[in-house]
């Protein structure tokens, strides 16, 4: 009995990667900066995004958000209170968003045109493992970590933190009572993703939001100037 070896060299997520590449060029052509927010459940992605949407809208900046969740539309309702267009994506048990879901929800989104936006935020399903495999065509992947989660989270989930372009530490207003070791957390993030931009924020007090918004502005200008994707600033 003889068998034959067929070399395939095919990416398992090739379909997703191709769709994501298509989305990326659509975002680029429309001039919209797309960010994918990823964290564990309970980190405060929604609160952080609520604050971001509100602060940007106050400045007259055009924003919208797609929000992934297993079942409910609670987050979409919270975010919609900012006045920005928000669309819920229910994954019905699937632990991550994929490019097809984004494509489908952009298609039937009444009143929202990519070209009419400055920023589109995608709030991923709360999960620190699976979303790292699925490219959504975003220009910037943001990993969030709250002070209640432990400083070693980046070491426990290196695949996610290593693929991020920016890291946001949330709930800094309760850092002290939580005994949060800020230097250790920053050190650990840097061990996994050297040179990454780190923002220390509180959605409640607004601490750190100014730097975050300034970063968003920089990245938007880089997109307009057609610069390549943001490189990590490597400090040797």
């Amino acid at each position, binding site marked *: *009995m*003889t*068998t*034959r*070896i*067929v*070399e*395939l*060299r*095919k*990416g*398992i*997520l*090739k*379909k997703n990667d191709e769709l994501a590449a298509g989305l990326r060029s659509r975002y680029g052509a429309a001039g919209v900066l797309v960010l994918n927010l990823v964290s564990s459940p309970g980190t405060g992605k929604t609160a952080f995004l609520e604050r971001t949407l509100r602060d940007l809208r106050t400045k007259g900046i055009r924003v919208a958000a797609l929000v992934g969740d297993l079942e409910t539309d609670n987050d979409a309702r919270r975010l919609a209170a900012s006045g920005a267009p928000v669309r819920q994506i229910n994954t019905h048990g*699937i*632990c*991550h968003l994929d490019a097809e879901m984004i494509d489908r929800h952009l298609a039937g989104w009444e009143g929202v045109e990519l070209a009419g936006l400055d920023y589109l935020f995608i709030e991923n399903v709360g*999960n620190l*493992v*699976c979303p*790292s*495999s699925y490219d959504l065509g975003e220009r910037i992947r943001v990993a969030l970590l709250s002070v209640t989660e432990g400083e070693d989270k980046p*070491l426990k989930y*290196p*695949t*996610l933190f*290593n*693929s991020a372009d920016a890291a946001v530490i949330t709930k800094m207003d309760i850092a002290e009572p939580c005994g949060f070791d800020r230097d250790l957390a920053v050190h650990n993030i*840097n*061990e*996994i*993703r*050297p*040179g*990454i931009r780190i923002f220390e924020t509180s959605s409640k007090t607004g601490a750190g939001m100014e730097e975050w918004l300034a970063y968003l502005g920089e990245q938007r200008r880089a997109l307009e100037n057609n610069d390549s994707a943001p*490189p*990590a600033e*490597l*400090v*040797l």
Partner: protein
Amino acid sequence: MHELSIVASIVDSVTESLESYPGARVEEVRLRVGALASVVVESLEFCWGIATDGTPLAGARLLVKTVPVVMHCAACDGDVELDGVQSFRCPRCNAPCSDLRQGRELEIEAIEIEEADQIEESTAVSKQNGVRR
């Protein structure tokens, strides 16, 4: 956690490739999985039988080759292999490295198939010998 979706993608992808080999049976599927691919090999293996059942891949073996992380070290001006994924520093000079060159692979490297005419032949031989394949 998403290994079942990964296996489902493998089934679709291999089934598509099999169109060029009508009647072929898959003996083995060989994967390359990067240390940063967010995929747990044990979970893949666990899902494998369930997800391939009733498909052209039923009964096929799964072979997973793990690919280590390789970074480009700017200080050494060379590519270096990391021992693990707990520290992205050059193992030679200890400088932090941010330029990933390998480690996120998630691909089907090859499949081992038994082609149609060969199946007929071996079935015929088995019948002659009274052996059930």
